[in-house]
């Protein structure tokens, strides 16, 4: 043993420089942290989309290369094939065709061949061959609904035909996996791909629902890459059990197109037997997918709990959760059965399986963060399985109260949130109603008992005071007040029966001194409000009767990098503020522009919300000026709104069209395109609650006060332009007359005798002494003079002139009444003579093959934009005038892409329905089978007035930058006869009565108008009343602009001249009287 002293006196420690050691430690730790942080900073953030090196899990199970560059690439796989299309591949044209329309024999359900990819010359050649065949056949024999391309000078699709397996094969309903056959009829190299996984360069291919034809422009051979493609899809159709075909043509990107989706390519995978899958992949090498990534903890827990029986779907649609003390209950049941509390017989949790794994799942379900989340989702799911809500409106504005609710004694939490569908429960926009009180959560009670709503008034009611209550639920029992009236309310059914009712409207009367009201009613099951909730954003869903946990789409919380919306101020043309601090000003309300500029920050698509997006381009404040002239706007609004009560009164006390009537008056500067006034009805009433407005507009879109009907329509059948469309006819005829002398002569005017002898009229059976066309159609003369008969039945090819009190008039009668020596375009416009326009427009349509007695090739359809150019010139001209395309009204002031579909700064395209028969050509000429907006018609009027077509604009100035002066494009059509005719409309034509007074003496010579009256019902008792035209400068004091306008009042009893004529007359008179200062 060593002596102690030596032990404790160890040798002197080595002279390590402690400071250096310290510094070394510090440096080491700093280096380690540096490495850790550098790794962390270099790691991409999880939110960024990674470039996947592996194919998606539901993709093909082998490695592939997604090529770079534009075009279509076929990628052959061991099983099936991939079709990759380059970014920004352009959709050139698309047509949809019901297979029911293509049947040869509806009884046998056999299919006529569908020809795709011929041009008009080829089709016409085939028709001629039919005519010269022996024995002769009709021109359209076997040529139903051919889909044409542009031909060699444009997009030239390799011609092919689609047939059933054989001519005699009967079509089977959609979904029966029936094969259709595609046969190439073109010598150019092309490649077929089908959803069966087959691919061939040969002429024939069978497909089920989806096939592609790939080819290259210039006739180059198709390797694995091609420039162009046609896709043929068979899709389900509501009206045809065989489904419909959708044929789409794709071509190379527009020059200078920028990849909108980051260069990702659309990849379709046809695996043969399985359904097609679509992916978005970046170009590159991809390995086969790995096993699916582990699911999120909440999904796993939910599925485990469901499998373990800890979550059970009840008969009432709600999910029961195993009690939190179930483990203890099981222990007690085993060790101390007497220690179990009596429990309900409904759900016996003690008899299910139980082991350590289930115990752990139970613990996680009740005592972990994921479990809490799962239970919250279950509660949210359960809360949606029952419905009960009330809303009330006191007759006395001072009366207020508070609702409470309970269910079998359990107090219920109430919320003001209701699904948008609730907007359908009100026939009118609710005003003065208190917010909804809906049961937000339902406790898990076993028995279904009525829910009890209790209203406590802050002050006792007086005897006889009334209130209205809307109850969403079963028929209520009321105590505390007397029921004066009750009415069931439905979401869709009209009339609403108690059986279909999901709500009840009650009018109640208070008893003297009453302070409380009690309502008891049964809650409704979730099925009563179909789609009442947006389940796509909830985790729990019921799919085929089974509960499933689905991850909702990401990004619901919004992009954190997106800047806050800009602060927006909107002014009128004169600089007066229309919107500030997110609210419309008093001036905006007074001018009826509140919905246009923005009613509420929550509104989307209004001017303010579009301008607020400028924050994406760095603007934090936006000060914008609209083109609306407050003087014109105020006068226009007064004139239109003043007329509407008379329009309604014409139908008597119970106006049946009150709920669907819209009206609009739009005024634009014909030369600059500035929209100077835009009046809409219905307007949002001042003081309406935004949520009510929104819900009402969503539930009843036709009555939406948020839609700018002047240039937005709902795509329905109530937007026919009627005779105002004859302005398009007139322009068409003027243009056609340049190369058709006989037509030019007809437009210049024919005498009565000439008209009777006119070869063109004779060949087309146009009779100067007939009120209908064709003049000798069966029974024409007899029935055309009977009031109450309609003439625009699609199945009827006959049209007749407008019926006055004495019935329809013939051209000769019109000439005689107006003392016309010759009758031409100006007179036809003055009289709005249907037979004259139908006849002459019909002569312009080459698909009818100049043979008025035969069907011609009217079923022909344009698959590419220029396929029918020159063949059906009405369509060409309509497209040139703006039909078929929406327009942005920003005057070019906003960055590209800022305006989105549905915004008020974008018009809804006016459209012509497809024309597939001679009758439809005639109806189109008369303004039927189309959806037109007042602004579109005002644009046409402006184009005739100025000889140039300008794009309308609503924005004049944004943050000090003014919209550039409008140049427009020259129309290139003689318009003098049209102007003359429109002047006659106001002088002695269809609008004569409206502008007859002496106060219009100064205005009338400078006024050019065209009326329109489009029947909206079978009996011809309700119309769209239209008036469009312009006023030359100088007619109004200090008004130097040429004012083009269009007025629409839907569902009117009177004609366009009577209804809209009165509106425009009142507007002009008001402007004339008020002078320049308003």
């Amino acid at each position, binding site marked *: 043993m060593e002596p102690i002293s030596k032990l404790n006196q160890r040798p002197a420690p080595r002279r390590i420089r*402690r400071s250096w050691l310290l510094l070394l430690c510090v440096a080491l730790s700093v280096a380690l942290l540096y490495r850790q942080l550098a790794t962390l900073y270099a790691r991409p953030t999880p939110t960024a989309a990674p470039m996947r090196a592996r194919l998606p899990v539901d993709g093909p199970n082998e490695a592939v290369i997604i090529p770079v560059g534009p075009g279509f690439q076929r990628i052959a796989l061991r099983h099936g094939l991939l079709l990759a299309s380059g970014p920004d591949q352009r959709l050139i044209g698309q047509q949809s065709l019901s297979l029911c329309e293509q049947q040869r024999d509806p009884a046998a359900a056999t299919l006529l061949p569908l020809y795709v990819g011929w041009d008009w010359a080829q089709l016409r050649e085939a028709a001629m061959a039919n005519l010269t065949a022996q024995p002769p056949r009709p021109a359209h024999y076997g040529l139903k609904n051919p889909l044409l391309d542009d031909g060699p000078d444009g997009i030239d699709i390799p011609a092919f035909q689609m047939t059933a397996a054989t001519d005699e094969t009967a079509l089977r309903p959609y979904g029966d996996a029936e094969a259709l056959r595609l046969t190439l009829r073109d010598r150019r190299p092309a490649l077929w791909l089908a959803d069966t996984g087959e691919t061939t360069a040969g002429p024939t291919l069978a497909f089920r629902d989806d096939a592609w034809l790939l080819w290259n422009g210039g006739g180059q051979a198709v390797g694995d890459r091609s420039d162009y493609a046609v896709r043929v899809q068979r899709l389900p159709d509501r009206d045809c059990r065989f489904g419909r075909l959708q044929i789409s043509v794709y071509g190379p990107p527009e020059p200078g197109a920028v990849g909108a989706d980051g260069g990702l390519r659309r990849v379709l995978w046809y695996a043969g037997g399985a359904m097609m899958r679509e992916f978005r992949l970046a170009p590159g090498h991809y390995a086969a997918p790995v096993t699916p990534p582990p699911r999120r903890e909440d999904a796993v827990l939910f599925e485990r709990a469901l499998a373990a029986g800890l979550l059970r779907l009840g008969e009432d649609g709600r999910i029961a959760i195993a009690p939190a003390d179930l483990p203890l209950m099981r222990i007690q049941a085993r060790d101390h059965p007497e220690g179990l509390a009596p429990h309900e017989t409904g759900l016996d949790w003690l008899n299910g399986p139980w082991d350590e794994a289930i115990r752990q799942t139970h613990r996680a379900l009740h005592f972990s963060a994921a479990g809490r989340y799962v239970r919250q989702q279950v509660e949210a799911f359960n809360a949606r399985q029952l419905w009960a809500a009330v809303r009330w409106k006191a007759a006395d504005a001072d009366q207020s109260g508070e609702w409470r609710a309970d269910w079998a004694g359990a107090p219920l*939490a109430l919320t003001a949130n209701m699904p948008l569908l609730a907007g359908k429960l009100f026939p009118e926009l609710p005003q003065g109603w208190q917010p909804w009180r809906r049961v937000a959560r339902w406790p898990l009670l076993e028995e279904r008992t009525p829910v009890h709503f209790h209203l406590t008034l802050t002050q006792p009611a007086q005897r006889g005071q009334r209130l209205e209550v809307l109850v969403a639920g079963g028929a209520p029992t009321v105590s505390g007040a007397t029921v004066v009236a009750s009415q069931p309310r439905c979401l869709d059914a009209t009339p609403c029966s108690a059986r279909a009712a999901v709500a009840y409207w009650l009018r109640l009367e208070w008893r003297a001194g009453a302070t409380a009201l009690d309502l008891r009613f049964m809650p409704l099951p979730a099925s009563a409000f179909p789609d009442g909730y947006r389940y796509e954003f909830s985790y729990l869903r019921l799919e085929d009767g089974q509960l499933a946990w689905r991850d909702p789409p990401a990004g619901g919380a919004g992009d954190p990098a997106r800047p806050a919306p800009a602060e927006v101020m909107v002014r009128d043309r004169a600089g007066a503020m229309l919107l500030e601090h997110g609210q419309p000003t008093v001036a905006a309300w007074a001018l009826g522009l509140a919905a246009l500029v923005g009613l509420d920050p929550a509104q989307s698509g209004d001017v303010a919300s579009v301008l607020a997006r400028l924050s994406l381009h760095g603007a934090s404040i936006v000060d914008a000026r609209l083109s609306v002239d407050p003087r014109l706007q105020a006068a226009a609004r007064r004139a239109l709104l003043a007329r509407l009560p008379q329009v309604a009164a014409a139908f008597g006390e119970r106006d049946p069209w009150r709920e669907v009537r819209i009206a609009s008056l739009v005024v634009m500067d014909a030369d600059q395109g500035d929209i100077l006034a835009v009046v809409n009805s219905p307007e949002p009433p001042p003081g309406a609650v935004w949520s009510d407005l929104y819900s009402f507009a969503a539930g009843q879109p036709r009555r939406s006060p948020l839609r700018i009907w002047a240039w937005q329509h709902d795509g329905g059948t109530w937007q026919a332009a009627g005779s105002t469309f004859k302005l398009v006819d007139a322009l068409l005829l003027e243009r056609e007359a340049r190369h058709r002398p006989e037509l030019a002569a007809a437009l210049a005017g024919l005498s009565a005798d000439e008209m009777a002898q006119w070869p063109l009229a004779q060949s087309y059976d146009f009779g100067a002494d007939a009120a209908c066309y064709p003049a000798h159609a069966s029974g024409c003369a007899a029935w055309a003079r009977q009031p109450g008969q309609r003439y625009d039945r699609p199945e009827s090819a006959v049209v007749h002139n407008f019926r006055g009190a004495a019935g329809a008039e013939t051209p000769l009668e019109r000439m005689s009444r107006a003392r016309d020596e010759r009758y031409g375009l100006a007179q036809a416009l003055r009289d709005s003579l249907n037979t004259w326009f139908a006849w002459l427009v019909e002569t312009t349509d080459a698909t009818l093959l100049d043979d008025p007695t035969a069907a011609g090739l009217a079923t022909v359809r344009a698959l590419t934009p220029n396929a029918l150019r020159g063949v059906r010139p009405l369509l060409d001209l309509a497209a040139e005038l703006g039909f078929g395309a929406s327009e942005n009204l920003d005057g070019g002031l906003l960055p590209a892409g800022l305006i989105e579909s549905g915004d008020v700064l974008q018009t809804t395209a006016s459209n012509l329905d497809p024309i597939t028969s001679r009758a439809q050509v005639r109806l189109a000429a008369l303004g039927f089978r189309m959806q037109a907006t007042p602004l579109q018609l005002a644009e046409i009027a402006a184009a005739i007035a100025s000889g140039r077509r300008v794009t309308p604009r609503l924005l004049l100035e944004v943050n000090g930058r003014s919209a550039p002066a409008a140049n427009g494009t020259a129309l290139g059509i003689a318009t003098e006869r049209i102007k003359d005719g429109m002047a006659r409309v106001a002088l002695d034509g269809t609008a004569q009565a409206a502008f007859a007074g002496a106060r219009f003496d100064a205005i009338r010579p400078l006024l050019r108008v065209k009326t329109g009256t489009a029947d909206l019902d079978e009996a011809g008792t309700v119309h769209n009343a239209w008036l469009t035209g312009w006023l030359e400068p100088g007619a109004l004091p200090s008004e130097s602009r040429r004012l083009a306008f269009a007025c629409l009042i839907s569902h009117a009893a009177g004609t366009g001249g009577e209804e809209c004529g009165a509106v425009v007359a009142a507007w002009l008179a008001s402007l004339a009287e008020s002078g320049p200062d308003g």
Partner: protein
Amino acid sequence: MADGREARIDRRWLWLAWLLPVLAVAWTVTRAPAWLEPRLLTVSLEPGHSVTLGREALWAPQADSEHVQLSRQPDGGWRLSNLSTSRQVLWRPARSQDDRSSREWPLAPGAHFTVGTQAFTVLAADMDHLTLQTGQQRWDYDGLRLRREGQPLPECYPGWRVRLREWLGRMGLRSWSWRPLRLGGGVYCADRLGLSGVPVDRAMITPISTGFALRPGWAGRPDGAPVTLEPDTPQAESLWQRSIPLASGDRLIIGRTQYRVVSTAPDLELAVLARVQRWPAGSEPPRVSPAVAVQWGSTAWLWPAGPSGWDRLLGLVAVLGLCGWLWAGGRDRPWRLGRWQVAAALALAGVCLGAYLGLATVPLLWPYGLVWVVLGVWLATVHSPWSAWLLAVVALLLGSGLTALLQLGVGVAESGWLRFGSNGAALAGGFGWLSWGGWQVRQWRQANAGPLDSRWARWSLRLLFGAALLALALQALFGDESGWAGMQPFELTKLTLVVAAAYALMLRARLWGRDRSFGKPSLWLRYLGPLAALAALSGFALVFLRDFSPLVLLLLWSLTLALVYLRPHPHPLWRRLGQGVIVALLWALAAGVAWLHDRPEDFPLNFQADRIRVWVAPEQYPHAGYQLRRALEAIRAGGWRGTVWSEGSNGRVMTVPALENDFMPTFFLNRYGGVAGLGLVGLQTALVAMLLIIAGRARDRTGCGDYRRTAWNWFGYFGVSGGAALLGAHFLVSWGTNLGFLPVMGQPMPLLSAAGSHLALFVLPIVALAVVIEEGHYDDTT
């Protein structure tokens, strides 16, 4: 061993280190967004009317949007009821000391209530006994156990806690053994009364100082099974809609915001006491509710906002000052100035403690100022350059922490975040002034009486041990994982463990080579004492906290301490082999962590397996991994430069849970950037290394001088080394948690996180021990 080089150290560098945090705090204050704080809410209401108020109108950031309903009675009085489904309203009547739920209903004999469909009648209710009648059954409850028809029901979950409660009850500590009676569920047992159709914990009966009260249970919700008071009477009301009368002097906590009722007539005036929503001073605050008017004030940086509570604070200051005066004042005390110094130090410690305890709302910067002054005083007091440098490093680290905590508070609209920095500064200041006062007295006493004797040391140790165990027991009984009564007793236990181990190893080291026989059982028992404490601690952590993070700390500490023990071991075999084994173990530990990251499914401990899986793949665990994912996002967002230079407010980093504590490094990295983080980790390493150096210097002195100084130096060596090891483990675990290279472990980062107990009960005592050891050593050699 102070060489001349060390002695010639230029202290200007130390003062610069001391000054830097002052500049940082000043910079933070000047750049802080200007806030307006609600000081007084005035609610005006006509009699008979009521108003619903919530988060916006009450400026209570943690409240619901519709949280309370205030009603004006026809007689002009005010009543308040809680409308929130999930959050409480706490109410402390003017002359009461207890916060109680506004939904609490004291039970009195004859009272009736129903839970679900079950009707209860209170037959008897006194201080320690409650009798209920349901149908034909009678239930008795004494605060601990339920009896049915007089027969005690079995324990729901039998275990040591129940036995401990019963034992406490038998010892007369009845209030320590109380537990609530839980109503609902499917089981009758000692603290549960099952009810058909009512889920467990829908309501509960809790013992209160005056008897028993019915209140909503932990799973209670207003729209659940109804709990009705006095049913079928005109006074019938739901427990959830129960209202309380308000009187002047009452305190309310709505959400987390505290108010005091100043007056009830003509209007209701509520003074806002704490944790209020602030408003940017640049714009006019909105008037949310027409019924509520708000009186605004600005942040009180240096001058008090009002006179509230100053009498209590001054009282504490006076008492402590007087104690200091008496303590330092012996008749034979040769100097007078020192007496004033001690009294002043204790008085200033009183200010700090008063600020910490919230006796008065002191201006925001006072605690920061007080702690910095005492750090300066300490810097001026110490002689050894090593302790001076140690204090300088502590000053820099504490300064970084307090600056970050101050930024945490000033960068958000909710005022409550300010308390973390203030409380930390106040605690550190209190510790500094108290220890400085003690140091002054010790200097004088030591000069007269010499070193302390072993008996004093043993008793001090026992006292510390007892206090730590008692605190742990209290936490086990009444607290939870987050501590008890606002403190974390585990920190004191860690200090005790460090001290006890140092004491045992000191004993062992003194006898190296002399105790090869096992014939001295008492000695071995003393050696085993710390091991027993270690086992107790580990068991506590595992059994009670169900948390393995303390075990990780203790493991690292044990291994380091073993290394420290073996390093001076006289026997070369022990020394070399032992150190080799320990180093190998440490390597194995690191390799094990890496292995675990690759194969989390192989983790043997079932109850922590989730935590491991979350650590490996946080993206699959949106709930359990939320904290880590958010933290990593925030760190990435900070980058190397940090966000504080460009953005005055804290932003999205505030959404990281436990930001002020476990995830304070995340805040630091987000706001000040990775470069500042590198500086921070350098300082932390320097702190640990300096502690180890000081410990090494103490070891160098063993064997010199008398046996008491040798023992003291061994104790210092082991104690400071152990403390340094534990601190190092804390730093490692905290960085690992925040940066994701270790599983999330709820451990604060020393001198950065807002962890008052950790700071005052562990970190600062270790630093103080090192300073005392080093100063004594330096005194010896100079």
